[in-house]
Every structure is written in structure tokens, then in C-alpha cells.
């Protein structure tokens, strides 16, 4: 049976509309229960950030680390390892970046910035390599090792910021925020508009590179084979444990780079809480984007929008950020469910027959 283009379009649109309505309805009920202005809240979260350049740049600076992290996570996922340790890897990247910047503040920018970013990559890569090699050689579950390494990284990060890298000025003023001193201007990434920095282009270039690596090279072919069915890959002469470990180094390296870029572009010093749960949101973005760069780029924009929207809601419409997070959770679950429904070919075929029956009947009447 042939499915007409019109049917496919109507079918997809129909399901997305139903999903959007369901999400809207559920979120509205929650907002109504806390007595908020429902329509105003939705406007603030979903549309207001798109209306002004300043808001747009804020959305984008949140999308940049999400995109880079999700790209790295997708590489690991495609290679058969679920990296939920990106949060820790990002923190290690921030530390390595900051350490280089603090150690050699006088080097010229063309030398120092790449060196510091490379240090970030290496820091994150090392943190990714540990669970990678443990899984490859000893079959240690990555769910366990990456989460545990997140704890260690988080504590190490705090230790560094409060002891080793603590801003000397902090001892005098005592603002209470553990942070490093402001880093030299030689590590700063240039800015386009507002706080939006050149990391945007780095993220987009990386997306293209990841696509080429995973789908156009033998290297990516082998990693995907190892991840899809390790027994068949081993049978085919592919060194599965090698590619597993490499994929985790790359994944960690991406997380570390995201950390470095975040410091170089936005904060210009290491501050507590800089990782902002990006490592976990990155997993959602990667899955939501279908583990493919072409999906991850728009998905990271969408999540950047939601994250930024939740910071606006408390001041604009008096809805606590917590409630916005609840709504985000709902929206994500509904959209993912809709995607699964869309991929159900059986349902599509059945609906198509109904559609055809309906369509032909109308014709006869006419």
C-alpha cells in the first residue's frame, strides 16, 4: 500500500499536535493549581526568549555547552557505552583549563588559549578514559563508574576552588562564593553580541566533524559496529575494547572542551556550580536528538530555551523555577513519547488504511 504525502504530513502533524496539547494541558493544570497566570507563564518560557536579541544570545550560550556535551555523549552511546559522567568530565576540563591559565598568564593569546582548551580536553578525556578502560578490560558497569567519578570530580572541583585556586581577593572581601581569581584576558574567547561567544561556531563545526567521523570514516564505522553488536564486531576483526576506550576518551574530551569554552567564553574564571547540570541535560539532549548531530543541534537549542525560560519565570510571572523544571520534565516525557508513537510503523499503516477509506468514501459522496 502506498502512503500519500498528504497522509504522512497530516499524520505526523496530528500526533505532534496531540502531544503538544497533552503537554500543555498537564502543565496548565499544575500552573492553575499554584494559582499562576497560565498563558503569561507559557509566553515567558517559550516565546519571550525569542523576541529580543539579548534573550536569544542568552539561550544560545546555554545551548553551546549542551550541544558539545551531547555530541560527545552520542559518540560514546553509539559505541556501546552510556556516559552519564559528563558532569564530572566537564568539571575536570574546567579545572585543567583554569590551571593552565593560572600557571602561564603571560603567554600570548594565540598560544595560551589553544593550550588551555587542549588542557581542558585532556582533563575531561582522562576522566572519561577511566570508566572506558574499566569497562573495556574488566567489564565494570559504566553506570556505576561514571556516577562515582562524578562525585569525586565534584569534590575535587570544590577542593581546588576553595584551597588551591581560591581567589586571593576572596580572603579579603569574603563574598562566600568559592571561585578562582579572574583569569588573564589572554584566554578569553571573543564575543559576538551580549555574552554570546565564538564557542557557537566551535559547536557547529564539531557537529559537522562528528557526523563525518561517525558516518563517513572506517573509524566511525567500527565504533558504531562495536556499539551495535559487540559480538559481531569482534567476529569481524574489530578490537571492541580499544574502540570502547577511545570513544570514552573522545566523549570525555568533548565534555572537558565544553567546560573550557564555558570559562573562556562566559565566566572567565572558575566558579562553583559552573557545570550547572549540563552533563545530565546533555544525555537528554543526545537521546532527544536521536544520537545524531543533525538532531542534537536543534535539540540543544530547544533545551537552551527551556533552561533560560526557567530563569525568567520567577521574576516575570512569579512562578518558581522549581515549577518550571517540573513542566520541563513533563514536556520532555510527552515529546519523547510522541516520537516513539511516530516511529510505530504498524500504527501508521493502520491509520493510513482508515484515512484512505475515509477519503474514498467522501469521493463517492461527491
Amino acid at each position: 500500500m502506498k502512503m500519500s504525502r498528504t497522509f504522512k504530513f497530516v499524520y505526523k502533524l496530528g500526533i505532534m499536535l496531540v502531544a503538544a496539547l497533552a503537554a500543555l494541558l498537564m502543565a496548565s493544570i499544575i500552573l492553575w493549581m499554584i494559582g499562576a497566570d497560565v498563558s503569561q507563564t507559557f509566553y515567558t518560557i517559550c516565546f519571550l526568549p525569542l523576541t529580543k536579541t539579548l534573550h536569544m544570545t542568552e539561550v544560545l550560550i546555554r545551548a553551546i555547552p549542551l550541544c558539545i556535551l551531547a555530541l560527545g555523549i552520542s559518540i560514546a552511546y553509539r559505541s556501546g557505552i552510556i556516559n552519564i559522567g559528563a558532569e564530572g568530565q566537564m568539571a575536570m576540563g574546567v579545572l585543567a583549563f583554569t590551571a593552565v591559565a593560572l600557571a602561564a598568564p603571560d603567554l600570548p593569546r594565540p598560544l595560551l588559549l589553544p593550550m588551555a582548551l587542549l588542557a581542558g580536553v585532556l582533563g575531561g578525556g582522562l576522566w572519561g578514559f577511566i570508566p572506558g578502560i574499566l569497562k573495556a578490560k574488566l567489564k565494570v558497569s559504566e553506570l556505576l563508574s561514571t556516577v562515582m567519578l562524578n562525585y569525586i570530580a565534584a569534590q575535587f572541583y570544590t577542593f581546588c576552588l576553595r584551597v588551591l585556586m581560591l581567589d586571593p581577593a576572596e580572603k579579603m572581601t569574603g563574598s562566600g562564593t568559592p571561585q578562582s581569581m579572574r583569569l588573564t584576558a589572554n584566554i578569553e574567547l571573543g564575543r559576538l553580541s551580549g555574552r554570546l561567544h565564538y564557542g557557537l561556531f566551535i559547536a557547529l563545526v564539531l557537529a559537522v566533524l562528528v557526523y563525518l567521523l561517525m558516518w563517513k570514516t572506517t573509524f566511525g564505522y567500527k565504533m558504531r559496529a562495536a556499539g551495535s553488536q559487540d559480538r559481531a564486531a569482534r567476529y569481524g576483526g574489530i578490537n571492541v575494547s580499544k574502540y570502547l576506550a577511545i570513544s570514552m576518551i573522545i566523549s570525555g574530551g568533548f565534555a572537558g572542551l565544553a567546560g573550557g569554552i564555558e570559562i573562556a567564553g562566559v565566566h572567565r574564571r572558575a566558579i562553583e556550580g559552573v557545570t550547572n547540570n549540563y552533563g545530565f541535560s546533555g544525555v537528554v539532549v543526545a537521546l532527544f536528538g536521536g544520537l545524531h548531530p543533525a538532531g542534537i543541534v536543534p535539540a540543544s537549542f530547544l533545551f537552551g530555551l527551556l533552561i533560560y525560560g526557567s530563569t525568567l519565570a520567577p521574576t516575570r510571572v512569579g512562578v518558581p523555577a522549581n515549577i518550571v523544571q517540573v513542566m520541563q520534565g513533563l514536556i520532555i516525557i510527552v515529546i519523547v513519547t510522541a516520537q516513539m508513537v511516530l516511529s510505530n510503523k504498524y500504527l501508521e499503516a493502520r491509520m493510513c488504511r482508515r484515512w484512505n477509506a475515509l477519503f474514498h468514501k467522501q469521493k463517492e459522496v461527491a
Partner: protein
Amino acid sequence: MEHITKRFPGVLACDDISIHVGEGEVLALVGENGAGKTTLMNILMGLYQQDEGRILINGEEVRFRGPEDAFAAGLGMVHQQYMLVPNMTVTENVALGYQQAWKPLKLDLKMVRDRVIEISEHYGLQVNPDAYIWQLSVGEQQRVELVKTLCLGARFLILDEPTSALTPQETDELILLLKRMKDELSIIFISHKLNEVKALSNKVTILRHGKVVFNGETDDYSPQEIAALMTGHEVQLPENKEPDMHGAPALVLKDVCVRSDRGFLALDGLDLTVHEGEIVGLAGVSGNGQRELAEAINGLRSVERGTITFFGVNLANKNPYYVIDHGMGYIPEERNVEGIVPPFAIRENFILKDSDRERFSHLSFLKKKSIEENAKRLRDDFDIRCPGTSTSAGSLSGGNIQKVILAREITRAPKFLIAVYPTRGLDMGAIEFIHRELLKKRREGIGILLVSEELDEIINLSDRIAVIYKGKIQKVLPHAEANRRNLGILMAGVNEDE
């Protein structure tokens, strides 16, 4: 079942099929892979809903919304893949579906256990109700499935390829058992193996491409006639009646010892030689070291002792890449998870072993065009039925998956070929095709080690037959001396010479 029609996206799986089975009758449902047999049975069991047509039981129309309704109507099915929980006992597995035992807050396991014993005694199905499933052999697990189905009160049994995973002895036992049971039950029996169909069934229905092409009394037709009706053309399995080709030793195993996954010695001082241009059949009941032998040769399992000499190079404890690089071709036992990467496109699976070679990539960038050309050529040469070369290999039927593997392994121009259970679970047409390809390779002077538990296959194709038993070669017979009887005795571990 009358006029059943079922559509899947892009396929018409069942096209106006009608069958009927009387009480105490055995209906054999035969047909090639993908002919719609399993789909039809899943509709009967309420797992799928038919798009058109109706099901009548004792003259009354029924409509099953799910398997529970089918159970309640006295239908029971033993699937190709057993639906048992490995780390539970036999009794616990039966209790899973046994409604009467589920009292509020309490599961009456003792009652279930009594029922298991009662049923197994009544039908002569020996099972230990307290054994864990993982402790049981495949044949025993099947008996558990049968007991489970009968405990649920089935009066009407559906068996989907019940013998595909059994050893020859277990198959004979099962056929005997079913013959006894058919006095009390009605049975639908799905099979590829026509001698079993002959031995067991009263009536036979043949499906092809989702349609009934034949209905008749089993006794009136020979297996050859049924095979011809099934494939639509005369099937003649080829035999190795060609002149002796054999040349220099290609693969020489000396005193090889290998451990199994569970730690015991699966190969215990095995010696075997295969020459160029000969097919050596390795006969044996599965689980006597065949899997470990194939894996050890191909670098997938470490070797404790001994040498595997392949054209002068020792392959013991080398990695798979090294073995492949030296010209080894390997058709693995588990085609669905080892022979192919299931989510990968067919064309991607064709380059599984060769993605690095200049033919398919340049400076590690894949050559899209030559990969596609290669895939199209292999698809046509090997008659792989698929919507396109970008179809995922895992969505193909078993016979077509095996053709993908065979095409890849043969066209890589190997110096040697190891084929492990190459035709297990395939239909006659596919078996014929694979046998012809293997013989063609032999004519080209390639040595082949053929591991199989189908004695007919081994006897038809092999120049020499080695019998494996408990990790040792029991005896090597030249083709002329081998027959079903003496091979069967050797496979059981009895060596007449000793």
C-alpha cells in the same frame, strides 16, 4: 480459521488463508521462511489481530483480544524461542501463567508442583519440577514448555518448529511423544523438516508468500513432492560426488585444549587435519566442543595448549583480525548476533571485515559508491530478498541473513572456510542454495570444515567425516564408510574399535 488476512507495513503476511484441524488430528503447516506460518499462528493465539477473516472453535466464532483469551479457549503454543525465565525453577515458571494458583497474597506453589508431576506422568514427559531452567538442556527445556502449556489446560497445541534446536536423538524422542499425545489433543505442527512431517502428521497445508498453495493427506505424498510444492520447484539437495580434489594440508590442529565459558575443558587434546579442496564434516551432538573449536580457530577464544597451524602459521591465541587477514572465512553459529550487526544496513554488513581495505575506503574515508555497488552485486548474485541495500540486516528472515553472511564470506575470496551449522532452521530452498555454494568452493580448491548436527547434510557433502565427542575427535571416517548408523553410534561416544 477462515479467510485470514494480515497486513504488515509493506507486506501482506497472510493472504486469505483458511485451515481447519479436527479433534485428535495433527496438521503440519509447512512453507519457506517468511511464508506467513508464524504470523498465522500468532493470530490464532491472539498475539496479533487479523485484518480480515474469522476464527471458529467447535463451530463458534471467537475473538481473542490477547493470549489469555486463547489460553482460556484451550489453545496453547510452544514458541520457537522458549519463553522461560532461566533463574526460576520449573514449578515457578509454570506458576507464572497458572491463574488458579494465584490466591490473594499467596502463591500456591505446592499445588502447581503437584500439577506439574501429574501432567508429566500422564503424558510421559519427564521433568524435575525443582530444577532451575538454566540447568536444563535445550530438549529438557522444551519438555518444560510442553508441560507448562498442558498445565494451563491446553487441548489444542501449536508447535512452532519444535525440533530446530534439538539433537537427532531428542528429535526422535519428541516425535514419539507427540504421536502418543495426539490421541487426546489436536496439534498444529510447523516444520521445515519433511521427514518429521511425514512421521507425525495426518494432514499437511503448505503456505507460500502468505497463501495456501496446497492441502492434502500426508500419507498420499512423498517428502520430495511436498518439498517441490513448498518451494514451487523441484528440490534436489546436491551431493558431493565429484572427483577427489584434495591437496596440501590447510588447517592442522594438534593437541588443542580450550576451556568453555563455564571453565571446563571443552576441547581436550583435539587433533584434526583439513586439506585444500576437501570438505571435512564435523559430526557430533551439539555441546561437545564444536562452538569452542570454531571460536578458538578464529581467535575468539584463548587456547590453553596445542597448535592450530594454518598454511604454516600458528593461529593459536591470535586476535580475530590476524586470523581474517590470513585468509580465514567463517560462517558463525549465531547468525543473528555474531554474523551480522543487526541494526546496520545490508551494505554495511557486507564490509564488516573489509572496511579498512582500499576497495572500500581511502585514507579511512569510506567509499560510498563502491560499497553500494558491491552490495547490489552480492544481493543479485546471492538472491537476497530485501527491499533495498539500506534495509537493516536484522529485519531480514533467517535464510536471507544467512545468505548475507555467506555472500560476504565467499566473495572475500578466503583460503579456507569454516561453516558452523550453516543451514540450521532454514527452508529447503535456502539449504539447497547454500549446499551448492559450498560445493562450488570445494571445486575451486578451498578446504571447508563443516560443523553440523544434520547427518544427511554431513553425509551428502563431506569427503571425510570426523566425529567429535567430549572435546576429542572420536574417529575420522572416509565418505564411503560413513552411514547414519555408525555415525550415530560414534556421536553417542561409543567407539567400536576400542
